[in-house]
């Protein structure tokens, strides 16, 4: 597709996305898993499953539960660790022709810094997305995501250790998400991604036990879209760095809602499970929306909510 004609491209500083449609961390594996359903090259970017310094085994099963128009997950951040990620997954990712965001998670500020350092040396990575908000890990992760001072400290540390663009992924489980968003901006973040999952729970009334092995888990999917959209709108008004909107996005209309609310790009998460082609459908849908509405660029949509 001719990029100029499409006019779907958005830029995050020096980082160029051919369109604003990305995949959300933890819902798209390492890209390869979806390569038979989606032309990865058509996407604005993909965000890989969260990576830690050491491999993590994750939580005991059951790890997922369906809820009304959503799902709970308590994967527990299972991942192969940064070294194996670089040696086994990057080869494929370097050749897919789109931006690769590496989502990272740690137990301490220092962990995040070391991950940033390691990834900075690795060719083929477009940006780092810092997951400070996953509700599943009981150690440092939770505190980072809700405390603005910690958010700023982690951001500063990561920025100091790498020259890649850094996006901070915010937790929705807070009283005022604009505070953590501003803390990220203060710390030098190149953008914020929101939202991560809402902390939830489900119980099996027959066994009288929690359904998830981890008792609580993260709620995602269409059910959370209204909350995510509200938070994106609030944050976009408060920060001057780009906002990536996430939460329940499944259709082109969903993506447009987030763009209108001020997101410069969107990430599709749970919808990938429901419809593996969702991302590419949205790219096509946005193209059509621009044409149908005689708009020359997606920038004429971003933040253009009429109040």
């Amino acid at each position, binding site marked *: 597709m001719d990029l100029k004609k499409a006019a779907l491209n958005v830029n995050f500083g020096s980082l160029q996305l051919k369109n604003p449609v990305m995949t959300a961390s*933890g819902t798209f*594996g390492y890209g390869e898993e979806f390569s038979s359903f989606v032309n990865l090259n058509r996407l604005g970017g993909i965000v890989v499953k969260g990576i830690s310094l050491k491999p993590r*085994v994750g939580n005991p099963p059951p*790890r997922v539960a*369906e809820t009304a128009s959503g*799902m709970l997950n308590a994967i527990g951040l299972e991942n192969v660790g940064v070294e194996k990620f670089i040696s086994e997954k990057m080869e494929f990712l370097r050749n897919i022709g789109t931006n690769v965001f590496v989502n990272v998670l740690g137990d301490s500020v220092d962990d995040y810094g070391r991950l940033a350092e390691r990834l900075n040396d690795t060719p083929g990575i477009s940006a780092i997305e810092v997951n400070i908000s996953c509700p599943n890990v009981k150690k440092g992760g939770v505190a980072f995501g809700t405390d603005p001072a910690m958010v700023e400290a982690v951001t500063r540390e990561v920025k100091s250790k790498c020259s890649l663009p850094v996006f901070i992924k915010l937790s929705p489980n807070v009283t005022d998400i604009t505070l953590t968003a501003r803390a990220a901006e203060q710390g030098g973040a190149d953008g914020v991604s929101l939202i991560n999952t809402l902390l939830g729970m489900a119980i099996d009334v027959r066994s009288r036990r929690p359904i998830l092995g981890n008792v609580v888990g993260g709620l995602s*999917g269409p059910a959370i879209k209204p909350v995510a959209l509200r938070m994106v709108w609030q944050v976009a008004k408060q920060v001057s760095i780009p906002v990536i909107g996430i939460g329940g996005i499944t259709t082109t209309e969903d993506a447009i809602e987030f763009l209108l609310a001020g997101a410069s790009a969107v990430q599709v998460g749970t919808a990938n499970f429901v*419809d593996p082609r969702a991302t590419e459908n949205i790219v096509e849908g946005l193209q059509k929306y621009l044409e149908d509405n005689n708009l020359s660029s997606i920038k004429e949509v971003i933040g253009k909510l009429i109040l």
Partner: protein
Amino acid sequence: MKPVQLKAEVMRNEKLSSDITRLTMMARDIADIAKPGQFVMIRPTSCYDPLLRRPFSLHQVTGDGLIEILFKVVGRGTRILSAVEVGEFLDVVGPLGKGFLDSSRENICLLGGGMGIAPLLFLAKWLVSKKTGDLNFNIVVLLGAATDSEILPLLDDFEVMGLNVKIATDDGSLGYHGFVTDLLSKNLDPDNNWIIYSCGPYPMLKKVAGISRDNNWQCQVSLETIMACGIKACLGCALPKSESMKLTDTQPYAHVCKDGPVFDAAEVKWI
């Protein structure tokens, strides 16, 4: 072979009993590459509730592009699917996972319980076609269910292949009155080198795994977990591996959708 996502036209909807449905769909790109033991994931509705796809084993696959699934209505997703009409299109992803593996052993037993019978028909056809001409092989099919109505409609499909089918029902309405696992000792000469292919409820599979281990039989089991993606993208379908497996791998969990659903029974940490 890589899985595909397609719209499969429903060609037949058979009600085998009050709560068991068999759907036949046109899905050439899946049929062409599917192996016994593999599964498909089907979206029950285009609305958002129920949201996730439902996994079903491939029950039959034909050369002319048809695939079949056999399922019991246990919840909302299966209720919706049991009511689809001929001519409607279902959103199907597949074939997924690793299927049953061939074995050099000549004494083959297929053991299915309840809806675990579903993949065994595809497997039986595959084995029969593979072994044709090989006079030494021997297939025993053991089928168990709660009651006769869950087995009767399927019996013919196995028997037309000339297979030796033994049946057990919980209520004694057909065949042996008791667990299908009891049929193992009744029908399998323990001195022979058996390979057991099994699918069914977890407690049944655990028992089969134990008996197989005790007898030094090979045993492949098809397992179920809750699945969100079916393609090892969500890591939701974790299954604890046996200690022996863990020695060669630092990860304590297998992922049923990709590493399975068929496992060597010795790989599974039975709980």
